[in-house]
């Protein structure tokens, strides 16, 4: 019995010793919890509001509003997770060195690794919407599909820039990616995924304007629920294109720098 307990404790100390090497991951979990609690606080405030129907845009019900919020937020998660996951998989499988000595750049490999997750995200969105339509009376009769597709495409471009930035951190530090968790946390809290941005305090409304997903959500809801045409969507599309124009070159630059640093420090294939 004593021996078994000692073995269990030894295994616990092993994990503790490994975790001590990644203390930032622990701190990030504390912040992640803060974002989650704050999100639910504002959600409850919104739901308890007597003016709920007035603050909802496009005069739709909350179900339609939040369904699109969840479906689109999935793409941000995919963009931020896929690059990390590809790198983590390659590190765990010890394939990264073999990939890096091929005639294909790591950025191309990362971009190619995004196709499958994005296609599955599209499929998931369609399933979300289909369940909503079939079982819960969600109506897409007046939707502007072209507008929705364009908003989605420019959103994916902007999100990909964030994903590559996030992967740069992982490349350098291997674990506890704060870029990803902070961005996901702030986006969940402030972008209007579960409630309109208008219910948030001023400083969070300002933060929302700095997040690409805010414009994606506005544009997607306007296209799918309000049937807004391309002219009406132009401000959201332009905002997302601006994010993409800044984030993609910036992320390529940062990623190339991070890759170069790992070649200098010899930590490229460290797990």
């Amino acid at each position, binding site marked *: 019995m004593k021996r078994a307990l000692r073995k269990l404790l030894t295994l616990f100390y092993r994990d503790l010793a490994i975790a*001590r*090497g990644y*203390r*930032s991951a622990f701190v990030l979990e504390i912040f992640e919890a803060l974002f989650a609690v704050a999100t639910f606080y504002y959600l409850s405030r919104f739901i308890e509001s007597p003016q709920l129907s007035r603050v909802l845009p496009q005069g739709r019900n909350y179900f339609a509003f939040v369904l699109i919020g969840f479906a689109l937020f999935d793409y941000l998660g995919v963009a931020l997770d896929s690059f990390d996951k590809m790198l983590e*998989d390659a590190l765990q*499988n*010890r*394939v990264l*060195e*073999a*990939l*890096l*000595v*091929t*005639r*294909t*750049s790591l950025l191309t*490999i990362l971009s190619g690794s995004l196709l499958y997750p994005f296609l599955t995200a599209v499929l998931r969105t369609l399933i979300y919407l289909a369940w909503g339509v079939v079982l819960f009376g969600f109506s897409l009769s007046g939707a502007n599909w072209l507008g929705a597709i364009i908003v989605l495409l420019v959103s994916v471009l902007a999100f990909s820039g964030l994903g590559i930035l996030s992967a740069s951190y992982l490349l*350098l*530090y291997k674990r506890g990616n704060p870029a990803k968790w902070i961005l996901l946390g702030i986006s969940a809290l402030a972008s209007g995924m579960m409630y309109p941005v208008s219910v948030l305090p001023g400083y969070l409304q300002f933060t929302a304007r700095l997040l690409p997903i805010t414009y994606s959500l506005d544009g997607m809801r306007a296209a799918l629920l309000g049937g807004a045409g391309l002219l009406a969507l132009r401000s959201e599309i332009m905002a997302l294109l601006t994010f993409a124009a800044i984030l993609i070159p910036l992320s390529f630059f940062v990623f190339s720098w*991070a890759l*170069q*640093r*790992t*070649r*200098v*420090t*010899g*930590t*490229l*294939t460290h797990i």
Partner: protein
Amino acid sequence: MGCPAILAENLAKYFPPAKSGWRALAQPFAKQRIRALAGISFSVECGEAIALVGVNGAGKSTLLRLLATLLHPTSGHAQVCGVDVATKAALVRTKIGYDAGVEQSFYGRLTGRQNLRLFATLNGLSRQEFADRIERLSELLELSPFLDQQTRTCSTGMLRRLSLARALLHSPEVLLLDEPTRSLDSASAVAFRRYLKNEIIGRQRATLLFASHDISEVEELADRIILLHQGQLRMFGSPRALCAAAQNNGLEAAIRALTGAG
């Protein structure tokens, strides 16, 4: 006369000490103090087979990884086929085949063929070229019995063969192999060495730089030997020259004498 296949000039590689906890945040910017290689200079001609020899920690793998563009030199220069490994890494990668000697370096849920096809495509091979090459390599490395098996179910020896096949698939001009026949049974090792010598070096005129602890392998394949010790080049010459320098008839004893390993 063309440029050398591999050229190193005063090449050095230092690593920063590993940091943990909050100090790990400064790791990418830490000063590189731990010496892995220093003052390495040599030149290898096209079609030569060169063995990298030395005890563990001598710097053999670091040198291979520098030439494979996986590491950036701290100082000095290295070129592969006249192309600088630090400034034109992408171009260097079009010329090399590299095998790190790590067996578990495949996507376990994919079959051997699927894994090799992925790497062949990333190396720019067409479907037809892949089909032709895989047929030839299957024959040589006896891949057929497990080629369509998920690699997570393959033995170490099988993975080793797949790994070598991956390095050879795109017919590189320069082959960088880290302990190529480790984990192979003796018959397969002999067949592979014969293939390297006759086909890759003999017919294709590719250049081979390989790290090895197997003296018989070194004797069989190497035209010249780079002897590394504690990150420095102790000697570069033919096996006979090494023996002469150590005043010893056997290569193994000569290497031991030259590295002061008794």
